[in-house]
């Protein structure tokens, strides 16, 4: 081991294992077991060379090989129902450049769990979990990203055949999803405007077969392809999808919340936003994932800043570690602080998600809007913070940060994508603002109305927005206590 790193490790005032166990929620030992298993499999579960030396086709081929190998080992080593074990296992084998099963697990499976009624879940979930099919999520359209209400793809119910007819009416309605949609998957959860009995009921999810299960050829009425290279996740295709009078049975509309009866009668969901729960799940998982990416970047930069010596602070005293410069500390240590801030927030929001889902299943949707609003703001803020943070780490490594050998360019392109995927950030902030404006219109600090006072006191207890209702101080008490 480089003696400079050994010297640094000796300075520690705490046990890194204990902090690591806190950071990973008690899973540190489990991570070590999974790692040992993967390393014992040798070449079978390892990329044939560092990904950055392969072209796009080679990367996609190698990750396809790894995905299949990974699937065959998964149940021997991880609990496939634990997302944290799945993600770790996946990241050890396929890295963070994307794999066909990544969005299958992180998006398609949760979307199906949240959107299928009991019969649909019984029929389809085992196939997804056994990887008999590979699926993704197709919401975004070429001309319509985050604005769900403006989606153009239609699913028109035909009561005479009890089928939905899917159509892509314009060029802008072409589904566009840089997550294995174009080449790897054979099914997708497709979001389309539901029309029945001559009326549009807005966007709803449908389970759609895209490719033949034997030949993998796209089915008649479906056009699939790849738009071309993109920023980050190079081993995922940059897919597009179009429908032309493509028919699916009525029961392929996912009916946990809203329903269409054989007659075409529409039964609405309990709450308008319950259809967004898969999106909320992904955002809740994303936040903690953001912390992990940033933690990787800052690990690289801090270690390198301790073995790299450059210049003298005191003339004649010898070259110092770059991290001894205050400017380098100011560049990197706040990034390290962001890792913890984002991770703790991610864990909180993830727990809140499961609370809300439990409440929804019990018929209580009171926290749903709060989760949706907060999740949007957090997605925007943390993706900005990590993108800026990874860039600071890259700059902190000087010329070598520019090289793929640092691992930082791949990390940067990965996290920069998060500024736009799962909702463009300005749109996300405006979603949060909408609920803030609704709440703040009710703020009243001075009132004689007892009912109003009690109502305000209740609102003040809300852990997310309570402070808005508290009377502000005139000046800060910093340094007075």
């Amino acid at each position, binding site marked *: 081991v*480089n003696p400079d790193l050994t010297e*640094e*490790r000796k*300075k*520690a*005032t*705490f046990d*890194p294992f*204990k*902090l*690591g166990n806190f950071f990973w929620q008690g899973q540190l030992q489990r991570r070590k077991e999974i790692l040992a298993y993967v*390393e014992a499999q040798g070449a079978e579960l390892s990329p044939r060379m*560092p990904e950055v*030396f392969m072209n796009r086709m080679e990367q996609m081929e190698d990750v396809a090989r790894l995905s299949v190998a990974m699937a065959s080992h998964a149940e021997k080593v991880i609990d496939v129902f634990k997302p944290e074990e799945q993600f770790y296992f996946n990241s050890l084998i396929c890295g963070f450049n994307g794999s066909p099963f990544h969005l299958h697990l992180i998006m398609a499976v949760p979307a199906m769990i949240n959107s299928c009624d009991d019969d649909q879940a019984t029929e389809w979930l085992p196939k997804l979990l056994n990887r008999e099919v590979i699926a993704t999520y197709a919401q975004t359209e070429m001309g319509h990203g985050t604005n769900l209400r403006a989606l153009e793809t239609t699913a028109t119910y035909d009561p005479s055949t009890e089928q939905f007819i899917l159509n892509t009416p314009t060029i802008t309605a072409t589904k566009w999803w840089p997550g294995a949609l174009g080449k790897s998957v054979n099914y997708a959860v497709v979001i389309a405007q539901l029309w029945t009995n001559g009326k549009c009921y807005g966007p709803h999810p449908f389970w759609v077969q895209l490719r033949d299960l034997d030949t993998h050829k796209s089915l008649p009425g479906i056009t699939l392809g790849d738009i071309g290279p993109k920023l980050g996740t190079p081993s995922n295709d940059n897919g597009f999808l179009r429908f032309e009078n493509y028919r699916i049975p009525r029961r392929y509309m996912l009916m946990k919340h809203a329903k269409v009866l054989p007659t075409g009668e529409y039964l609405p969901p309990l709450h308008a936003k319950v259809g967004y729960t898969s999106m909320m799940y992904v955002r809740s998982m994303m936040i903690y994932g953001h912390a992990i990416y940033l933690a*990787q970047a800052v*690990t*690289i930069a*801090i*270690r*390198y800043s*301790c*073995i*790299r010596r450059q210049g003298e602070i005191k003339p004649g005293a010898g070259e110092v570690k770059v*991290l*001894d410069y*205050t400017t380098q*500390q100011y560049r990197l*240590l*706040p990034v*390290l*602080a962001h890792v913890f801030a984002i991770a703790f*927030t991610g864990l*909180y929001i993830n727990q809140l998600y499961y609370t809300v889902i439990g409440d929804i299943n019990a018929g209580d949707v009171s926290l749903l809007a709060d989760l949706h609003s907060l999740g949007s*703001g*957090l997605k*925007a*803020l943390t993706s900005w913070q990590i993108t800026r943070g990874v860039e600071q780490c890259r700059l902190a490594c000087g010329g*070598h940060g520019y090289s793929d*050998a*640092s*691992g930082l360019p*791949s990390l940067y392109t990965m996290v920069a994508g998060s500024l736009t995927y799962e909702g463009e950030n300005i749109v996300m*902030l405006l979603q*949060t603002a909408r609920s*803030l*404006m609704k709440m*703040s*219109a009710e703020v009243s600090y001075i009132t004689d109305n007892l009912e109003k006072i009690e109502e305000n006191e209740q609102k003040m207890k809300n*852990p997310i*927005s309570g*402070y*808005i209702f*508290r009377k*502000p*101080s005139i*000046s*800060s*008490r910093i*340094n007075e*206590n």
Partner: protein
Amino acid sequence: SKWSFTSGSLTEFVKDESIQVWYHSTYLVELRRIVPKLTFYEIFTISYDFESDWVGDSDCVVAPTKIFFFQVLDYLEAFEHNSRRLILSALDYIQQQKKLGRSAEEAWNEAGVLLCHASKAHTQTFMVRIFIETIPKIEDIAVRNVMEDILWLYISYELVHSAVGLLEEGFLSSIQMGIIRKKMFASLAKIRPNSVALVDSFDFTDRELRSVLGRKDGKVYENLLEWASNSPLNEHDVLPFHEKYLGSAMRE
């Protein structure tokens, strides 16, 4: 501020500081375990009352953990103040626009930038609160101490970078701003010796990091050359197309 800290009484009272710190952390963690839905403010209030019984009401001693939370709450208040200010001013702006005859949609569009600032501040405030609330959940004293340093860095750094409005409005004085900045630099110096151990605690292996620079053993430069052996360009001393273009062009 009525619970002021007096160093003399603290010295007299605290025979063994580590025992006292352990005591505080134990009951904070215990409170959190017993009543997981308590807000930070509620925990804080309960823990103060609890401690008053123990110390005696006449004694003005405030233990180190408590001093930490007093100070942290003042910082949290600054974030909340900033966020509330931005939210209410965005609301006010929208209402003014409506009074000028703009539709709700037009007013919303006009206020777009202010709305984004308000959302960011609100989300930031939430993150600060969650970080603060996480500290008492850390049972190991040494780990908690270093995480307190990290928290101080986080909140002072963020406040320095979002204080324009607070200074403009007079909520923060320039003296307080100087104190916050000083706190930030002091935190950097405190964290510096622990920085490698902190990133080691993430427990990333070389397999995950896929980085020569971030290798756990720190053997960077020797491995950069091994990494270079993967480059297909190195299969040839002279690239196969050299003669066709550059070689012949130079000779011409």
